[in-house]
């Protein structure tokens, strides 16, 4: 079978390897599609729902999990998409109890990129009910800290840990508004590879200088 497929994305005719996801194809061709839970070295889980695009007659799909098909027509921007992802991002920002000014991840943060892409005005977000208290930093891990106020719960860190060390040392705990990432029990399971710190799309995992 042929191993190249061609499709159209935002009016641009593109040829990619068979099996490439729509999101990867777009990023490779310098078309930005919002995403938080996607990482090139991990299997796409479609958890954040920000990478949705319109295909064909207006069907919405998560582009990270959608392999490109020959002749496919993809639209990455439309009022329909915007209507879905804008509130999601606004809520994430409202729950992001931190300012960018002093954040070490500023300028290489996926959330900042998203905000700029959607032209989100922080003042508009203030109409949402902001978290009252700042949660304390979790310092239980020997080599990095976890800041729940910045975490977007994308799951990249857990998935990374699991893929490298087979069993993750990090887990989601809690539910809903109070969900966090935590290390539990056998802390020595962490092998201090710090790959999760490197891959965190925001600045929620912070390497500690020892």
């Amino acid at each position, binding site marked *: 079978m042929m191993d190249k497929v061609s499709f159209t994305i935002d009016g641009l005719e593109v040829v990619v390897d068979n099996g490439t996801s729509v999101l990867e194809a777009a990023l490779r061709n310098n078309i930005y599609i919002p995403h938080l839970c996607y990482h090139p070295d991990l299997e796409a889980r479609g958890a954040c729902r920000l990478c949705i695009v319109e295909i064909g007659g207006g069907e919405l799909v998560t582009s990270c999990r959608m392999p490109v098909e020959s002749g496919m027509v993809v639209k990455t921007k439309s009022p329909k998409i915007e209507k879905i992802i804008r509130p999601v991002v606004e809520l994430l920002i409202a729950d992001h109890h931190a300012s960018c000014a002093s954040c070490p991840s500023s300028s290489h943060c996926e959330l900042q990129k998203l905000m700029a892409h959607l032209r989100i005005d922080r003042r508009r977000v203030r109409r949402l009910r902001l978290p009252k208290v700042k949660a304390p930093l979790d310092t239980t891990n020997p080599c990095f800290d976890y800041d729940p106020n910045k975490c977007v719960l994308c799951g990249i860190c857990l998935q990374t840990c699991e893929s490298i060390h087979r*069993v993750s040392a990090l887990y989601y705990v809690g539910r809903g508004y109070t969900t966090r990432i935590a290390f539990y029990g056998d802390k020595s399971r962490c092998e201090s590879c710090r790959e999760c710190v490197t891959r965190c799309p925001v600045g929620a995992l912070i390497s500690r200088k020892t």
Partner: protein
Amino acid sequence: MEELEEQLLREVLSFYRGKKNELIPILLEVQGNFSYLPEDAIQLIASFLNIAEGEIYSVASFYAQFRLLPLGRQCVTVCRGTACHIRGSHQILQEIEKAVGVKEGETSSDMEYTLETVACIGCCALAPCLRINNNVHGEMTLEKVRGLFNPESSSGLSLDGRG
């Protein structure tokens, strides 16, 4: 973990095959026996099911029903459902907090009281209501709360339900 508790736990586990999908039934049964999920029990269950302790913690913290801290001898559950809310469950709760000296979600240091709220006990006609262990008390007033929780009557109450 004490020997007796470990024995009980091993007995519970002996009815399972060690498959990952048995986690929730096991947690329910262990909690039924211990009133909460002790840390040692979680370790043992983890090795029994061959999963990480963290995974159990993740599941247990997701469901409101699982508890990781022991219950007081008297578990006081105040209903904050619509009917009870309208009929003043908030004041009832405050009054209990004052009387027993613990806040919602806490257990007193002498392990006598645990104070909780739920979305509905299921007897809205008796609003505002509360439950102490397995006994429901309806049509609560601040007076009745004081009666229930003053030191003289509490010794009688602790015989309720569990035992």
